[in-house]
């Protein structure tokens, strides 16, 4: 578009600027919005600063890290921290494992939790409230208290890892992909979130589908679930994030380095006597990349998801 073309409409509608000015709300009405933006910018900065600090620290040399007061920017941008950090542990293997486990958890959780959520929200059955309360109750069990029982269950799975039909004699799911993926494949929070979303959908949709002869699974899969995309994005993102950051369970259940995950690799930078801060920050930056990318892709639905479910 040329400059002439750009200026033409303005020339033809001379009073427009005046009209625009008069259309603007008065300052007194804009002030609260301005204040809101200021607050939001401040909070955003507060949230972003640790992230930027992590990246900046990952590029500092040891003497730079030791300087007091600490400088904002590195005196020498030490990009070598990244390749050197990757030599601390087999990060390629760890990254692959984390990715596979996170994708596995996310896919299974989306399928199973959406089904469970749908059933609790849309299919009346005796005891549904009790079942739902039971699901909520499991969210309140602290993780650490579950570790040992969960370990024993994984070890005693029948017919796996040399176990007999009573789950004896072998190691079950220990040191296996089964043990890494199945125990985290369904979360009560995801069931809760899906239930809330399915509850918010109008009953008329379901009834119309039923009149058209659609079965229950068809209503779930073809009518209702496509309408809860924000829930899918939210659950998907939260599950992936939680799985990606999981440290203790993969450490406990595996002894083979080939099955270890990225968070275990990052712990190599943190030892009781010494922390390799620059490497730790470099490794953490790299480990954060998939999560940031995923959030950027799904952020619109993610925000809707939280807003619609009433969780803020």
């Amino acid at each position: 578009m040329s400059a002439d073309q750009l200026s033409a409409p303005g020339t033809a509608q001379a009073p427009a600027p005046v009209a625009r000015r008069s259309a603007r709300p008065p300052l007194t009405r804009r002030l609260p919005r301005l204040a809101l933006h200021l607050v939001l910018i401040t909070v955003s900065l507060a949230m972003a600063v640790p992230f930027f600090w992590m990246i900046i620290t990952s590029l500092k040399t040891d003497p730079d890290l030791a300087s007091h007061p600490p400088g904002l920017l590195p005196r020498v941008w030490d990009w070598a921290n990244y390749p050197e950090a990757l030599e601390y542990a087999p990060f390629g293997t760890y990254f692959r494992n984390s990715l596979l486990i996170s994708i596995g958890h996310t896919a299974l959780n989306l399928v199973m939790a959406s089904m469970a959520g749908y059933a609790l929200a849309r299919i009346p059955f005796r005891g549904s409230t009790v079942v739902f309360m039971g699901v909520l109750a499991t969210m309140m069990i602290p993780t650490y208290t579950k570790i040992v029982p969960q370990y024993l269950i994984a070890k005693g799975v029948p017919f796996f890892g040399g176990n007999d039909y009573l789950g004896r004699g072998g190691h079950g799911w220990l040191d296996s992909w089964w043990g890494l993926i199945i125990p985290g494949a369904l979360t009560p929070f995801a069931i809760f979130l899906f239930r809330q979303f399915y509850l918010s959908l109008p009953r008329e949709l379901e009834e119309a589908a039923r009149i058209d002869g659609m079965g229950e699974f068809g209503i779930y899969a073809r009518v209702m679930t496509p309408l809860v995309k924000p829930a899918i994005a939210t659950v998907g993102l939260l599950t992936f994030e939680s799985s990606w950051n999981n440290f203790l369970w993969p450490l406990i259940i595996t002894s083979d380095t080939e099955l270890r995950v990225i968070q275990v690799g990052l712990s190599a930078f943190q030892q009781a006597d010494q922390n390799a801060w620059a490497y730790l920050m470099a490794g953490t930056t790299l480990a954060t990349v998939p999560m940031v990318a995923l959030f950027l892709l799904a952020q619109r639905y993610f925000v809707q998801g939280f807003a619609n479910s009433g969780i803020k």
Partner: protein
Amino acid sequence: MRTHTSALSRRRLLGLGAAAAAGAALSACGGPAPQQGGGGDASLRLLTPIFDRADGQKLLTSLLADFKKDHPGVSVQVDYTEYGKLNEKLATSIVGGQPYDVMLMGVGWIPPFVEKGVLADLGTSRSELESTYNPRVVEPGIYEGGTYGRPILLDTRIGIYRKDILAEAGIGAPPKDMTELMEMGKELTVREGGKLTRAGVDILSNDLRQTYLPVMWAHGGDLFADGKPVFDSDEAVEALQWMVDVIRTEKIEDYGFTQKGAVVAPLIQGRAAMMIGHNDMWRQASESAPELIEEDRIGGFMLNQRRPALFQGGTLATMSAKTKHPEQAKALVEYLSGEKVSPQAAEQRGNIPAVLSAADSEYVRGNKLISFAVDNLDHAFSEGGVPAWLEIREEFKPALESALLGKSSPADSLRGLAETAEAIIAKGA
């Protein structure tokens, strides 16, 4: 050494482990002898919280390849973990009925695991061990007359000072005792407009318990006597009072001036003249301020009042009481704690080799804090001593903090701590 703390998880998991241990998974107390098995082929499982980095894994792989040359039928499956999660790994493997054959663990861990029947008596006499290690280094592996652990590497908490800062103040030698340390600390403290810019003595960079204990030992106090806590004795109270004086009375350091795990200790930055710290400070200086090493500006000194004392932590090799291959497992324990592996493991971690033969090695002599510690191991004290130690030790920090923050007197803090410890011991009895 590790006195690595993961308070919540450790306590809970250990509790759970102990509960489950009451069942079929664990046998009764007393550290049974391992099941008898002959030599020959065996597949051993080794759990290690050291060697966990890539370079450490590479080193261990090569060391185990050498072990296999002498024991061709023995294969070793290594499970690498870190100290912070060692207890969880041990607890789950034990209650799961799949204990490791050989386990590396820290000082203070032997009594709890012996009492649970997890560890086997290695059957090595004290005198035999003392031909390889300093007698003080042997001590943490011995419990109720049995030898359950052999040391691989050590770490220490000692007095560390900046020679250049003392010289600037006209002080020619480090403090001889805790009284002099306090006096020098006062003299070397610098405040600008009321704000602390240089602490005369830094007592906050190290884990608070690991700072207090050598101070307590130097004052003549002890942790336990006949299995009962005595860390509320007059000597122990005096030691905590010394720390309170550093912070509250003489204001040599402000609480919050630094903390354990800070990127760099104030001593390296010139923001502290002296400190009670880890021998690892040498490595930290060589990486962050190499001029301190090149110009010989860092030295060690003993904490001393009624007796000289340094804190000794370490990693020990132990054998499972449940191993099906006791002969091969014992051979692996001896190899890992022997003269070949110990120096290499220590160097890889930046720690102190446990074996006497490494005392004059190039690595030890090239690190003045490590060589200082090695030369003073006769004055080493170790924490632990009772089966409930792993739970009791988590109670130290809040009690010490309470005194340092002025919420309670040193005597009250330690009395409360001793009562808590007695309750924990009684619960486990």
